[in-house]
């Protein structure tokens, strides 16, 4: 096949001022707005009464003792284990000890539980609404304009995506319409937001989706619908099976070894 001459299209420079820059500026500003909206809408940590705090903290105490047993000496670990196991099994830490053995309340009726779900809803909304708005804005005002050319060739398959709204069959798929500039902005602006807002910002939806997968496990431990009494029992068993050793075992041998080798 003969090499085709590169297509040149003469574009009005006004396209830059009235399409490219507005879209870019709006994308950046939306990211900043989204960041501050999510900061503002972040739910305040709720105030708990003393008993439920005690229930949670004693659970955390047990987990911390179990996972950091190696920094404790054997007698002090044993003392902690005995104390915690006794208290767990007698239910001394429970919020209302009368309800032991009863099934947990339905999470849908618990007002505390609704907060977590509302938080997730808000986050999703903060992502969805601006995206839909901007896309329909671009479609309404800027559809059908060819504004910019990609600096690298791509296959014809991308044509329908990049040149949505431009009904020209023979045009090189490298030419991009305004909607595809919008998509490029979605993917590429993360680094710009990093400079403006600091690296743990909520501006980009890409970062949000990454973050949504990670730290799920932590607060779930005390989530609604979980019987704290059962959790305490499990934790008592976990503590009981820990085979204790200390990092200071044989420390003098290791010290002598490290001195000798030098």
């Amino acid at each position: 096949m003969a090499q085709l001459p590169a297509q040149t299209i003469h574009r009005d420079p006004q396209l830059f001022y009235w399409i490219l820059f507005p879209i870019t500026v709006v994308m950046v500003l939306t990211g900043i707005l989204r960041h501050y909206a999510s900061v503002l809408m972040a739910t305040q940590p709720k105030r708990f009464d003393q008993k439920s705090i005690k229930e949670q903290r004693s659970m955390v105490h047990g987990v911390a003792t179990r996972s950091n047993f190696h920094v404790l000496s054997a007698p002090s670990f044993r003392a902690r284990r005995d104390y915690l196991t006794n208290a767990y099994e007698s239910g001394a830490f429970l919020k209302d000890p009368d309800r032991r053995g009863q099934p947990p309340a339905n999470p849908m009726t618990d007002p505390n539980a609704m907060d977590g779900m509302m938080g997730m809803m808000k986050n999703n909304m903060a992502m969805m609404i601006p995206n839909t708005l901007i896309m329909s804005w671009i479609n309404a005002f800027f559809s059908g304009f060819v504004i910019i050319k990609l600096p690298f060739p791509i296959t014809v398959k991308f044509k329908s995506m990049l040149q949505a709204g431009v009904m020209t069959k023979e045009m090189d798929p490298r030419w991009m319409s305004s909607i595809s500039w919008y998509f490029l902005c979605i993917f590429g602006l993360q680094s710009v937001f990093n400079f403006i807002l600091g690296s743990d910002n909520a501006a980009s939806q890409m970062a949000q989706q990454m973050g949504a997968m990670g730290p799920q496990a932590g607060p779930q431990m005390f989530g609604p619908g979980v019987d704290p009494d059962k959790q305490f029992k499990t934790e008592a068993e976990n503590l009981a099976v820990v085979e204790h050793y200390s990092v200071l075992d044989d420390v003098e041998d290791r010290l002598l070894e490290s001195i000798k080798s030098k």
Partner: protein
Amino acid sequence: MPTEKEFQIAPIVPESVIHNTKALSNLQNLTASIFGAAAGILGLESYSGFLFYFVFTILTTVLFYTIRVAPTSLKAGHAMFDTGRYFRSSYEFWAGGLFGGLAGYILTWTLFYGLVRA
């Protein structure tokens, strides 16, 4: 591979690991955008543009290693090009930035290419 007990004797602080990784990825994001602007102004196309990006990103990482990592890491007895003192895996250090910054690079590359060669 270090055992669990060795980790307990010399623990890894997650905050420090996160801080190190963040410093590196911030640098790579910033430089990727700047390289994109440079490539666009130079008018690079297709392969030469991507080659430009890869060469300069690797150059940045090497500079980062020689200026920030190497002085203390060599002194502490690590081998040359071993980043184990500050980073968990050396793959993450040497190749992580290549793909993290690519989207930002393409954005600024396209933008400046379009502006200059309009």
